[in-house]
């Protein structure tokens, strides 16, 4: 099994030849559905290059880069990061809606920024280092 680190967490997948995935694994890792017309999400389909799809499996690293997103992996090909491209980050910020996130407190209890809607929020970072 390989591990994919995507925008929100970790997904275990059965990858072959790099990051070739079944339609089911691809959907769990990316939220995009493999269809005859390409990789689809809601009404949008992105056609895949011919050499990126074979026997109901797709080259998800190639697809992810096609979307303009970074892809990095370890030398063993067991751990992959499907990152988020600069355009998407900039577009999210340009709308000025504070990007949402969920993180744990010391006790491991998750907290989601958008749950504070209705309050002014002072979001600050710090570190022990």
């Amino acid at each position, binding site marked *: 099994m390989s*591990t994919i*680190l995507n925008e929100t967490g970790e997904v275990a997948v059965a990858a072959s030849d790099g990051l070739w995935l079944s339609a089911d694994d691809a959907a769990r890792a990316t939220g995009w559905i493999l269809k005859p017309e390409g990789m689809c999400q809601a009404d949008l389909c992105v056609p895949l290059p011919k050499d990126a799809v074979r026997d109901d499996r797709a080259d998800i690293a190639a697809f992810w880069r096609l979307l303009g*997103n*970074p*892809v*990095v*992996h*370890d*030398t063993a090909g067991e*751990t992959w*990061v499907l*990152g*988020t*491209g*600069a355009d998407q*980050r*900039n577009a*999210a*910020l*340009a709308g*000025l*809606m*504070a*990007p949402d*996130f969920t*993180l*744990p*407190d*010391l006790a*491991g209890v998750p*907290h989601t*920024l*958008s749950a*504070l*809607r*209705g*309050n*002014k*929020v*002072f*979001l*600050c*970072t*710090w*570190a*022990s*280092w």
Partner: protein
Amino acid sequence: MWQQLFDSLKSENFMIVAVAEESRGAEHARQWIEQAKAEYWCLIDQQHRVADLYGMVNVPQAVWIDAAGHIVRPPETAGSTDHFRLMDRTTRTLATEHQEARQAARTEYLDAVRDWVLTGHHALPADRAQHALPRITPDIALAQAHFRLGVWLRSHGNAAEGDVHLAEASRLHPDSWNIWRQAADLDEVGKASGEAFWQRVQSLGDRPYYPPPKL
């Protein structure tokens, strides 16, 4: 430092979200959070997700978010100043005048936060907030992917390969003190403020380590 601010504003539909950019995990942040006796949210961000989402490059940085969830002040230095660069590093002391100037800047910043919560002052109109946003480049986006992989590999018993990705992240995003210092800290606790850190600060020359907020 934030608890006092929170105390004075907690009846005002206001919350502080203090995010520890802490790839070593919650235990390394615990003593600081417990000492602060914090009543606001103190969250642990092992993968520096907040820095990635908001384009932050140092700590402490803060974003002001209004009640509708809109950014009204993009990331900026939150109360710290460059006075530490004037410190006598053998005695670890700072001249009184610099201590006072540092304290004055911190007070001014905290007063501005209070002013914003109480009156709305200092919130930027949308066009100015947009103008002040950080610009994420393809290299920065790639750096964040390498950083994430580096931290993951380090926490899964593969420090040697993790360090390769952390170094690559720093090379791609040299302005990020978060990436460089976190990598140094993962290598060895204390290294993030060791000799190499000071050399890196010195090489800034006239450029600020903590750019002052434009209040």
